Structures are given as structure tokens and as C-alpha cells.
């Protein structure tokens, strides 16, 4: 009996030590963060190394504005129908989101459309595929490299644009490495590297996104609710978006 108790205690203490060691080396990324409106809202404005399939997907995504000054009703932007923006587009948008750091996972909560995502930091492997995927917000596993949280995200839903420019990622085939670093007490930086042989001939790395800490009591220091409800989106589209975008001489 005593042996059994000792064995249990040994396992508990050993695990607690490992747990504390892992926790101790992690940087604290907690807080509400936001990229300002002046921040770059694309991941990479340069020419990307598209495969033919990737280029077709990119050209098939029709955002509003751009060189063509395409009207909103002429786009096929998924969020125009109140679909989720998806993970990577959420990071390009000037709305606040929160890091909640727990011993075995990091949770990100996005005000913009009220979605959330979990980054598992409990030592699990990055799966090849999750049976319930694909996911608009992916499946993510993270580990600490010094003070940098390195996240591998897989199982992304190919219907979600990576940014408002319509940067595509292939369903299941795309993998994204995120590198999160708190470079100053009020500054968090992120860059991503996209590996997606179906759409890109080689991995490409994004520009660096910079997020500022939104302190409690500041305008954006607390997350609010911003749900895209189809019932509201349909009303908006029928009474405002479409009437403001139907060019009279465009009809045959």
C-alpha cells in the first residue's frame, strides 16, 4: 500500500515539475490585442508563388474594391453572406481579440463575429488530419521556443479567405506556422509561413502583423459581441448593399 502511494506521489510530483517547467518558460501573451485600422490588412501584398490551381483560386475570389473597384454586390466574398471570416482573416482585421493563456492551451477569442480558437500546448503532436475537419478556424498545436509561441495550424476550410484580398488556402492541404512574440509589454507581433503545395510552389512568409495591448478601461479593452446574423445581413444586403451597387446600365 505504501509503495502504491509513493508511486502515485512520485508521478504527481514529476508531472507537476514538468508542468511548471513548461509554464515557466512560456511568455505571457494574455490580454486584449488589436491591430489598428492603419495596419496592413493583407498577409502579403506581393506576388505569391501560385501553382496553376492556386492562381485559379485566387482569381476566382472576387473582393470588393481593389484595382477593379468592384462593387460589394459583385463580389463572392463569403462574409457577404454572413459566413465566418475564418482564422487568418480575423487576424488582419482591426477589431480586438483576446489571448487567454492556460497551462495546457491558449484560447483566442475574436470579437469580430464572436468566434474562438484553441491552440493546444499540452505536448500533443500536430495531427495529419482531424476527423471532424475541415475548420474555418483550423486545428492548432503550439509549443514554446524561448519566448516565442510557435503554432502549427492544419485542417483549414478552403472556403475561408485568408484576408480581404482573397488570398486562398487549399482545403486540408494548407498548413500554417504562426510565430507569436511579445516584443514589448504593449506589443505583440505575428508572422505566418504558409506551406500549401496544392496552391503554392513554395512556402511563403507574411509581413509582420503588430498588435497593441488594449488595457482594461480603454475603448477596446473589453470584447463586445459582434455576431453576423444572416437575418441582419440579408436585410442589409437587400436595403443597402445591393441598391448602392447595382449599376443601371449593367443589366443586359
Amino acid at each position, binding site marked *: 500500500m505504501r509503495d502504491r502511494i509513493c508511486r502515485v506521489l512520485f508521478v504527481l510530483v514529476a508531472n507537476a515539475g514538468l508542468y511548471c517547467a513548461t509554464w515557466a518558460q512560456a511568455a505571457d501573451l494574455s490580454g486584449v490585442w488589436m491591430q489598428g*485600422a492603419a495596419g496592413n490588412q493583407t498577409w502579403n501584398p506581393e506576388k505569391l508563388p501560385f501553382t496553376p490551381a492556386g492562381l485559379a483560386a485566387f482569381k476566382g475570389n472576387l473582393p470588393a*474594391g481593389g484595382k477593379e473597384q468592384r462593387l*460589394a454586390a459583385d463580389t463572392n466574398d463569403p462574409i457577404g453572406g454572413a459566413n465566418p471570416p475564418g482564422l487568418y482573416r480575423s487576424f488582419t482585421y482591426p477589431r480586438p481579440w483576446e489571448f487567454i493563456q492556460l497551462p495546457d492551451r491558449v484560447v483566442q477569442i475574436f470579437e469580430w463575429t464572436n468566434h474562438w480558437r484553441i491552440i493546444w500546448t499540452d505536448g500533443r503532436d500536430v495531427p495529419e488530419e482531424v476527423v471532424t475537419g475541415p475548420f474555418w478556424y483550423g486545428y492548432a498545436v503550439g509549443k514554446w521556443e524561448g519566448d516565442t509561441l510557435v503554432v502549427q495550424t492544419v485542417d483549414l476550410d478552403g472556403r475561408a479567405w485568408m484576408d480581404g484580398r482573397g488570398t486562398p488556402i487549399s482545403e486540408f492541404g494548407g498548413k500554417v506556422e504562426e510565430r507569436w512574440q511579445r516584443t514589448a509589454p504593449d506589443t505583440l507581433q505575428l508572422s505566418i509561413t504558409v506551406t500549401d503545395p496544392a496552391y503554392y510552389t513554395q512556402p511563403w512568409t507574411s509581413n509582420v502583423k503588430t498588435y497593441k495591448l488594449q488595457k482594461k478601461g480603454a475603448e477596446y479593452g473589453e470584447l463586445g459581441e459582434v455576431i*453576423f446574423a444572416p437575418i*441582419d445581413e440579408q436585410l442589409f444586403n437587400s436595403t443597402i*448593399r445591393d441598391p448602392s451597387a447595382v449599376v443601371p446600365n449593367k443589366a443586359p
Partner: protein
Amino acid sequence: MPSRLQSHYVCAAKMRLHFATFAIFAGALAFTAPVSAHHGTAPNYKMDESIVLTGTVTEFRWRNPHSALLLDVKDASGKVINYAIELPSPGVMARGKMGWTRNTFKAGDLVEFHAHPSRTGAPVAVGGCTDSCEVLINGVSPNNPEADSKSATPASAQ
């Protein structure tokens, strides 16, 4: 202190229509603060023109991610047109310099609203509210005067 709209626009012409319903200011645009609705409705509007819509509130939609103010505006012939003004989400309007609430506009209020007109000529406009909207309700600005000294609202988007 000049408002953002006053700072950015040089009025070149002003057209006053019957019943003084709306005046159009078309002018050179030095630069415009971005109005980036979440799925890019900005191309739908003439962002280099500003119109002043004067009318009576029929509805104030305080909803995510798009809000809207609907006004009955009389045209030159006296015909009443229901104008829809696209606005940011409540999360943007409630914060910072605007400080608006769902009760900011009530049906029947007389409103004078500076907005950018639709490219199509449809009775739709966008408020162009970045840090604040230029608007008077029954002659009074609803914007939060105490927030003027705060840092600019970082999100113009919805």
C-alpha cells in the same frame, strides 16, 4: 476645432433643393479616412463627394455588423424619399468619439447628416464615420464631446 469632414473636403458647389432637403457638396478630396466596411461596401459610394441629408428619422437599426439610419427626405419636387444611411457597427459607434447608443436617434427626430452618396443614384449613402459622424439631431450633435481629446478610434471598419 474643425471637424474631420470640414478638414478633408473643399466644397466646390452647393445645390439647395426645394424645401431645403439636401445640399450637395462636390469637391476636391485631399484625402479620406478609410471607410472599410467588413465586406468592402466603400466602392459603392462616391467617397469624394459629400451630401447633406436633412430629413425625419423613420428607423434606426442598431445591429451588428451593420447599422443604418433611415430618413424621410424630400426631393426638389417635394416627393418624400426614404434614404438609407449605412453606419458602422454598434461596437464602433458606442466607443470613442461617437459614444452613440440605440437611443441616439428616435423616429420623428429631425436630422442633418453628412454622408457619401451611392454611385448608382439610389437613395442610399454611407455615413463615412471614422472617428465620428458629422450629424445634428434636432440641431444638436450626438457625438461625445468628452472623447475628443482621446486617441482616435482605431477601427473604422465594421
